[in-house]
């Protein structure tokens, strides 16, 4: 009997939610070499895609979006049994969003990164959220 080939560790799945086309393309370009990336165009779309199998290992999301914003989406994810433990990184373009986050009391685990921050910061937080060595 021949030995089974060693299984490759499957790539982690990241869901990115943002209504801006440029940001979606940029995040896809940054992360897709190392991870499997799925894109959503607003909070409602993000919720739908989060519920589809396979479950994302990490969700990165903008806050200010039409239809359903990032915080409302995160709250609904927290209330979902299968999804509530998924870490969330908020990518914010407005400083006022930080105040909203502070007031929102979203369940753990989550963190935030400014869109204008050095991309290294986002990469580091992604690795940490996925339990990888930074």
């Amino acid at each position, binding site marked *: 009997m021949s030995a089974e080939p060693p299984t490759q560790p499957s790539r982690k799945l990241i869901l990115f939610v*943002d209504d*801006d*086309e*440029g*940001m979606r*393309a*940029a*995040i896809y*370009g*940054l992360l897709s*070499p190392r991870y499997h990336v799925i894109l959503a165009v607003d909070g409602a779309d993000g919720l739908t895609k989060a519920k589809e199998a396979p479950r994302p290992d990490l969700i990165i999301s903008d806050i*200010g979006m039409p239809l359903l914003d990032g915080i409302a989406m995160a709250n609904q994810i927290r209330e979902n049994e299968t999804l509530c433990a998924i870490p969330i990184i908020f*990518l914010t*373009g*407005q*400083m*006022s969003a930080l105040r909203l986050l502070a007031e929102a009391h979203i369940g753990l685990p989550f963190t935030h990164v*400014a*869109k*204008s921050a*050095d*991309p*290294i910061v*986002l990469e580091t937080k992604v690795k940490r959220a996925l339990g990888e060595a930074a």
Partner: protein
Amino acid sequence: MLHEFLFANRAAIIARTRAKVALRAAPRATEAELESGIPLFLDQLIEALRSPNPANQAIVKSASNHGRDLLKRGFTVAQVVYDYGDVCQAVTELAAETHASITADEFHAFNGCLDDAIAQAVTEYGRSREQSITAQGTERLGDLAHELRNALGAAMLSFHTLKTGSVGLGGSTAALLDRSLRRLSILIDSTVTQVRLESSSVTSERVSLNQFIEEIEVVASMEANARGLALSVAPVPASIEVMVDRELLAGAITNLIQNALKFTRTGGRVSIKTTAANGRVRIDVEDECGGLGPGKAEGLFRPFEQRATDRTGLGLGLSISRRSVEAIGGHIGVRDVPGVGCVFTVELPHA
């Protein structure tokens, strides 16, 4: 006593005040306004005049509310002042007609109360208005910051990806960086233009359109090539000149060309023609977007109308362009060419 007189004739005073208000040419006060505002003021005035040391706190507070209320209903400062003035006149007339025995001191106190009320109402009106304007400004600034950070974020992320060396400079990541930087540039230009328009800092100089259009063509043809589109710029006679703010005109024409390139189907053509006739100069920017459909043309200039798929930007471009052109003494219009595209026309007086 004045307060007894006011109390006894309350209904008559209110009726007379309403009659005076009805005669005003400016927006008519509604029944609701007269229901709450003037009667309330009158009642507090009676209270204030009754007590030996009239404290005007209650009047001041109700006058504050009255001023805020009038702002919400869309009235002007003049209306606020006239309201109280009409009450005063109604009272004085009625007192004279009925030969009421009211002392000079009492009229003095009455006028004092009115002065307080007017001052307070107008101050509150002004304060509420400033607050509302500031809130609008803050909201717009927040939206602008968000757009700028999206464009900047996309630029930084794509450059970061390029630096890793895993993708080449000829691919989609580099194109995204390019697009994002251009978007930043447009956002910044449009913000500066808006600030200039709002602060009315419009200059005027003699501009030769020949050279002006040539400069714009250089950048526009690069953009057209990048999108796989053709750009035709008809030669401009050297004699065509206008007296305008150069930066505002450049911004408006550039915006029209950007739109034309954005909405023209791949492989299509954008054309720019400059002509002069009867003391007017026309700059036509024609695209091949396929046509707008009936009745859609004028709606384009409203802020936040956006066509089809490419929704980057704040949707303000065309409305800013129109304001810019009007600020330099011109006119901007659009014509639909069914099945083909649109022609945007900027018309200016010949210098």
